[in-house]
């Protein structure tokens, strides 16, 4: 089985869907001649042409709005926001136009909006955000956030084939840092959680880059720690979360996003409501405090959840 980086796996999914389905096209700022700010679509224009690999004006609302228009007349647009942060400029088109169309009059809007997200490399307040919770709170939008290369390919494939608007969070810090075996050919990864490591004493729930932080933090602990990779935030795999908590009775939830109303807050609420009787300790959370992501390395590292913070929280819980 070929080994690919997380980024190569995303490119692979896009390339295969462009080959397999003539309705698919990609568009965004600098995605064509330049191959995208992170080179996800490098070489695409040579294979697929400018009609299907479209450099757009710098206009996030129009990127998403025109994608909606193209989708409702039968296309399968995949939009790239150059950085996830910029989706704020297209928020209205996504939340009000795309997200509500099916509920209002049964109109499917099959678009994918790719969001290069996350911090850890001095991107500062406008190139580091994790905006997934904004869209979890907006009905009608699916929210995916893979952590490994195999899932990145399989979930992006599933997103492109899905009849709904899907925001696809691809963590920039994983792009070239994470490598893994990726099956050749077309396959879909289900929009469910994945047990990244089995364990029986404690469950750590995470997604995206934090899955890797959680695995590293719990590797040396003298305990059996289960790490659950959510992979999909909408739909949220409630059954997998509850099953893991039932098994371990202790749970730590890690978000790289700002703490208040983050995905992990929803997971905590779910567990508190549905698994209270199974718990043998408080639900603990590690997340980024509610501050913009600062630029300077010591400041940024002070706020992003670190391996040490996760490990300390695990120890506290195991000792509880």
């Amino acid at each position, binding site marked *: 089985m070929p080994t690919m980086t997380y980024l190569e796996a995303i490119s692979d999914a896009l390339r295969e869907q462009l080959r397999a389905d003539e309705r698919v096209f990609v568009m965004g700022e600098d995605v064509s001649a330049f191959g995208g700010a992170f080179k996800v679509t490098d070489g695409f224009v040579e294979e697929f042409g400018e009609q299907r690999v479209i450099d757009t004006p710098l206009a996030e609302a129009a990127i998403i709005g025109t994608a909606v228009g193209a989708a409702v*007349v039968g296309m399968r647009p995949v939009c790239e926001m150059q950085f996830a942060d910029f989706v704020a400029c297209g928020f209205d088109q996504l939340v009000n136009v795309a997200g509500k169309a099916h*509920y209002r009059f049964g109109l499917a*809007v*099959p678009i994918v909006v790719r969001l290069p997200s996350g911090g850890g490399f001095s991107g500062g307040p406008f190139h580091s955000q994790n905006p997934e919770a904004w869209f979890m709170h907006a009905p009608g939008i699916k929210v995916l956030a893979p952590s490994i290369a195999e899932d990145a390919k399989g979930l992006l494939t599933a997103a492109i084939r899905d009849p709904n608007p899907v925001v696809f969070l691809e963590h920039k810090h994983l792009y070239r840092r994470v490598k893994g075996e990726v099956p050749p050919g077309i396959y879909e990864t289900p929009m469910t959680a994945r047990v990244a490591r089995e364990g029986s004493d404690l469950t750590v729930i995470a997604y995206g880059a934090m899955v890797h932080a959680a695995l590293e933090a719990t590797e040396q602990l003298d305990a059996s720690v289960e790490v659950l990779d959510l992979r999909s935030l909408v739909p949220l795999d409630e059954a997998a979360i509850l099953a893991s908590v039932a098994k371990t009775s202790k749970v730590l939830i890690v978000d790289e996003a700002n703490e208040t109303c983050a995905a992990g807050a929803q997971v905590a609420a779910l567990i508190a409501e549905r698994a209270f009787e199974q718990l043998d300790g408080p639900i603990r959370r590690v997340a980024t405090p509610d501050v913009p992501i600062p630029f300077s390395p010591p400041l940024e590292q002070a706020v992003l959840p670190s391996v040490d913070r996760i490990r300390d929280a695990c120890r506290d819980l195991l000792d509880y």
Partner: protein
Amino acid sequence: METSSLRPAEARPVPAAPEDAAGAPAHLTTADRIELLRAMLLMRAIEARALALYRQGRVPGSFYDGFGQEAVSVGAAFALGPRDRLCPLHRDLGAHLVRGVAPARILAQYMGRASGVTGGRDGNVHFGDPASGVIGMVSMLPDMMCVATGMAMAFKLRGEPRVALTWFGDGATSRGDFHEAMNWAGVQRLPVVFVLENNQFAYSTPLSKQFAVDPVERARAYGFPGVTVDGNDVEAVFEAVLEARVRALAGEGPTLVEAVTMRMHGHAAHDDMRYVPPGLLAEWGERDPIERQQQRVAELGIDVDALRAAVDAEVEAAAAEASAAPMPDPADAVRGVFAEGEPVPLGDGRAPWSGFVEALS
């Protein structure tokens, strides 16, 4: 067209109506001209009926209408082919009627009934019947300009001879989506028609507080023409949009058509219009689009009273049908957020203009 002397602080100067009202237009048969009148009569009768239902407490929420603006939606929609796609605004009921949405479904929509176009999930004119090739609007204006631009982009990518059309108001030209859509459509030379429905007020805000230069002037800066038509002359609106459609199909890109009209009612039914200068409504009342078309049709020897009576009877029957329809099942409120399976393609709406009928036959 004058630009520097334009003073939007005052109501927009209105282009003169054709002198020879009975003179046969180039592209419209007698049947077409009757159909234009019929659609406008139907729009006004439905909205009048719905307003009465609103005042009786049988239409929940708020009520918006396009009284006095009927020519803009009817004239523009009449120029569209069956495979064209459109995104009407909340004063464009006529577009839905031209495309063939049944009056009973529209009245049921206003009343929040299960048989309304959205089954009670959205209100008033916030609907689009997918089977008619119509995409429903959202209240954030002019978001649908971007959507229409995207539909046109798909048509161009696939090499299909189709256009997209959307309407938006004078107020909406102040938002960024106007710029993003105009620029995008201009850069890619897309087959899209933008109809600026200039009805003098955005809620209570007059043109003088909305822009320094009439937005039709902006079209040239985006690389395509902007034309102004008398928005109270349904045949003039039709001709302008038909020409824009021909340009679009010839690969010449978008057109901005400014239809100058007047919102004769308040922003919504609660609005007493105290901000409208005295005399302005009376002045525009003299230019009623239905009266004008009725005169033309009458001069062709058509019995317009009979036409009016038929429309009124149709609306009464529709109101009865809508009133008898059940309210939606509360259990339905949480269903249908996500689509499942392969999307159902949009249908082709009714396209009654004789030019299309001939082309098909």
